[in-house]
């Protein structure tokens, strides 16, 4: 009688345990492994396309591919046009908010955290970029967010990239939700869009290294390592999402807002494809 009572009490728990055991797959999906295979294939594509270029040099973008352009760029880098922006970014990073705190209060390691972004925030269920984290710090401390594409946000991002130089790109994809975001970015990268029916990969994989009028098309590998960039065309420093929007406009697609889910997922995917390269931003570009 006593034994029956105990059994009845234990039965629900036993059923739950067995249900969990049945529901759990024998081997949970290793999302990082799937991403690593993509990264390997992606990097292999460029290494086969440009066998004379060392993998690490793809972080220099188009200047890894063309010697003449590289020479000009190296001369420009002796007095880099983003130097004043980095200095201004440092001052803004340490400038106290009205509440006495500062951006420095939000970021460890003195702000040298470029290598930790972008990442997938499992609690929020979304990709968090460095620029997003900077503005969220401001809002959390009662300040207004800065515009996303240029100006003070780009300057602070440039400073944080500068003091993080040499950190390795190491995007982690650990969960189904993170993999979903990664796959959305991957789809965005390969799907054709706009009036010209072009994709990111169409230009920056298939046409990388070829001339587009007077310019050489940059390789997609390493593109996210060196942002923000001081672009001669802009005459100022700007963020990666500003460049994404410009690319979309060029192919006749309506651009998405900077830091939209689309561009954050694209950055997440594209950065994962550069895993193993070094962050070397900010940079100067034509």
């Amino acid at each position, binding site marked *: 009688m006593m034994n029956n009572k105990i059994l009845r009490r234990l039965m629900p728990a036993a059923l739950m345990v067995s249900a969990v055991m049945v529901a759990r797959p024998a081997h949970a999906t290793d999302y990082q492994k799937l991403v690593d295979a993509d990264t390997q294939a992606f990097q292999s*594509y460029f290494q086969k396309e440009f066998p004379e270029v060392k993998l690490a040099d793809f972080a220099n973008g188009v200047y890894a591919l063309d010697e003449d352009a590289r020479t000009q760029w190296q001369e420009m880098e002796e007095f880099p046009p983003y130097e004043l922006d980095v200095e201004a970014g440092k001052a803004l990073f340490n400038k106290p908010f009205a509440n006495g705190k500062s951006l420095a209060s939000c970021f460890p390691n003195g702000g040298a955290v470029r290598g930790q972004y972008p990442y997938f925030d499992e609690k929020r269920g979304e990709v968090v970029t460095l620029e997003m984290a900077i503005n969220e710090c401001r809002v959390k401390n009662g300040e207004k967010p800065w515009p996303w594409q240029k100006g003070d946000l780009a300057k602070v991002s440039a400073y944080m990239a500068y003091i993080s130089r040499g950190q390795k790109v190491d995007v982690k994809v650990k969960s189904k939700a993170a993999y979903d975001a990664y796959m959305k970015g991957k789809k965005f990268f*390969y799907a*054709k*869009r706009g009036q010209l029916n072009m994709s990111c*990969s*169409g230009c920056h*994989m*298939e046409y990388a290294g070829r001339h587009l009028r007077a310019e050489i098309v940059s390789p997609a590998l390493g593109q996210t390592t060196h942002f923000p960039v001081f672009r001669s065309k802009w005459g100022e420093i700007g963020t990666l999402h500003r460049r994404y929007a410009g690319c*979309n406009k060029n192919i006749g*697609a309506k651009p998405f807002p900077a830091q939209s889910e689309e561009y954050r997922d694209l950055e997440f995917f594209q950065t994962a494809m550069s895993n193993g390269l070094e962050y070397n931003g900010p940079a100067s570009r034509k």
Partner: protein
Amino acid sequence: MKKVLSLLSLLVLMPSGSMLLAGGCSSALIDQAEAARKEAAALRNEWRDTASLIASAKEACEQGQQAKADELASRALNESQQAVAQAQFMEKNWEMMIPEH
């Protein structure tokens, strides 16, 4: 003479004035283009110039330039329909676009 001129100017201005008072013009083509643009936007694949083409079509329509309005609206409709078809095709086939070496 002044009264005659005033009456004449009233007659000239009346059609456009009444259109403005009526709150714009109506055009089935513009409505179709706008509906198709919204469909493309819902698929996250709106093209760059569609909204401005529709805005220009509305402006032409309000100014009584029906032929110009129809031409602009047709272009916008065509763009939107292509954007929708492009999005639907890419939804199914984007992985085929991954280049191989």
